[in-house]
């Protein structure tokens, strides 16, 4: 799928990730292409099990030992990531590429206080220790935490989910990366807190001028926040385009289904339109289009041939219907 006018921050082509297990191996990410422009907020949407988290982990080389990932291109700001050794890649992590996790409290070391965490982050950023407590306090204030001194002395288990997510954002802020992969950062938070955190994300983006890959299964969140949206299904991107186009005129049947469900929820419609069926078994995937078994607009060729990617430069769809139009 294509990139924007300036050099993209991230370019991914044909990303594939498999997991080896007792029974064999499963390809969870099946040829994902992504391009993220500088300071762009790209939403990555899909249901659980669609491979969105694994995509993020693959880009940051955070996969467990039993996983392997391949790609034809993986470029960060023009630099080929695959050519980097372990130590070189580690240098990039945090400083240039960062990740925000779904379970905020779980991301902290339970044996250490919050101030320890911030101090180590600051040390990573500046290489030195002086004035770390000032910087730590400032970082917490910047994300809207009242009483930063009190919070600094707390242990992670004493902090609420929303507060923890703020602190994590503060830590990422302190590192000033160029690309941030946020994996469902508000899923575990309640609505009020969620809105605050999302506002914080907007603030984060404008302050850092960083690019984001915002992973979520929640359409409304993506609508509120993202510039472009990529829809993922069964390890593949099925549609990608500007956010407003995706919402107002979705072209892939899966996307249409998602939008319809989200809209019905929002409008509290009496009947929820659901997408029938479940994700395909990736150990033995059906031939042709992976979505065909669930697709209300499926045609005979959908079960035979894999759908091609079609559309304009800024809005692409992986569907036979699109190809026909």
């Amino acid at each position, binding site marked *: 799928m294509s990139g924007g006018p300036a050099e993209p921050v991230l370019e991914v082509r044909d990303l594939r990730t498999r997991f080896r297990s007792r029974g064999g191996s499963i390809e969870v990410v099946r040829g994902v292409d992504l391009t993220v422009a500088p300071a762009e907020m790209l939403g990555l949407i899909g249901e659980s099990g669609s491979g969105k*988290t694994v995509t993020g982990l693959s880009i940051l080389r955070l996969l467990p030992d039993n*996983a392997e990932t391949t790609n034809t291109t993986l470029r960060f700001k023009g630099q080929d990531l695959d050519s980097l050794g372990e130590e070189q890649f580690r240098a990039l992590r945090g400083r240039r590429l960062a990740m925000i996790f779904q379970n905020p409290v779980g991301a902290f070391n339970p044996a250490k206080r919050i101030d320890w965490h911030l101090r180590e982050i600051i040390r990573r950023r500046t290489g030195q220790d002086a004035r770390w407590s000032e910087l730590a306090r400032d970082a917490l204030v910047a994300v809207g935490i009242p009483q930063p001194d009190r919070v600094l002395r707390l242990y992670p288990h004493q902090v609420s989910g929303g507060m923890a997510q703020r602190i994590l954002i503060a830590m990422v802020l302190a590192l000033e990366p160029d690309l941030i992969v946020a994996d469902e950062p508000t899923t575990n938070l309640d609505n009020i807190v969620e809105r605050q955190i999302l506002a914080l994300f907007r603030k984060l983006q404008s302050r850092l001028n960083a690019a984001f890959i915002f992973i979520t299964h929640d359409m409304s969140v993506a609508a509120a926040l993202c510039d472009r949206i990529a829809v993922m299904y069964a390890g593949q991107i099925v549609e990608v385009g500007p956010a407003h186009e995706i919402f107002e005129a979705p072209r892939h049947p899966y996307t249409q289904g998602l939008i319809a469900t989200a809209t019905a929820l929002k409008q509290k419609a009496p009947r929820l339109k659901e997408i029938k069926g479940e994700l395909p078994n990736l150990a033995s995937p059906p031939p042709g289009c992976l979505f065909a078994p669930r697709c209300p607009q499926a045609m005979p060729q959908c079960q035979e041939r894999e759908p091609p990617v079609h559309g304009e430069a800024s809005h692409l769809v992986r569907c036979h219907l699109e190809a026909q139009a």
Partner: protein
Amino acid sequence: MNSRHGLLGHATTLIGASITLVAMVAVVIGPMLMPYGPNDSDFFDLLSPPSWAHPFGTDSFGRDVLTRVLYGARVSLVVSAAGVALATIIGTAVGMVAAYKGGYADLLLMRFADLLFAFPAFVLALFLMVVLGFGTINVALAIGLIYFPIFARLARNMTLLVREEPYVQAARLMGQSTPRILLREILPNIAAPLIVQATIGIAFGIIIEAGLSFLGVGVQPPTPSLGVIMADGREYFQRGPWVLTLTGLAISFVLLGLNLFGDGLRDLMDPRLRERTGQ
């Protein structure tokens, strides 16, 4: 303990099981196959090193050590198993009742079990030998008493988990008596970890029995037990080290089998054996 990959994990369990099996067979059939009796003295062959005629050599009375070891292993295993069986039955019963009834019964019974558990195992065994008198049966009782709190606790904790399951509720509603519920609904579902614990318990029980007999307060000679034979061997260790060494080796062998087997069982039951396959 639970991250052995695939084949290796199964291999160790199999090795453990086979060793245990070999040991069992040897102990049951061995004595009958041996040409000697455990107390047959050959005065022409006192304290001789291992040879074809006597694979483990002879002791100071001219007795074939291998035969004695086989008979002794029988005794040790039986004693240990008896003690552990006692602990399992009574401990499980107590634990299940405590968990099922709850309240004061639970508190009291568990406090008692904890108290017993607080005593260092071997010291408690020694104490019991003094009180009850030395001898084989008392060793089994001592082992039983040492392991009782472990089974009581384990059974109690497992029963607490299982108590609220639907099939238990159903049985209660149908008016089944408590003993029946405990026996037929709860027990089968908590049996697995108890069995694992029992396997490991028998292994350590052998060590306790051997230790007590070695000191002279356990099984009394001339009845052979692994500890008794080692105590003999100790007397003339410098002149004839093979007696003690080979007997100890035999013990270690059996224990190795039991431990590997028990470990393997535990690994098999551990659901976290699966690798992390990504969120």
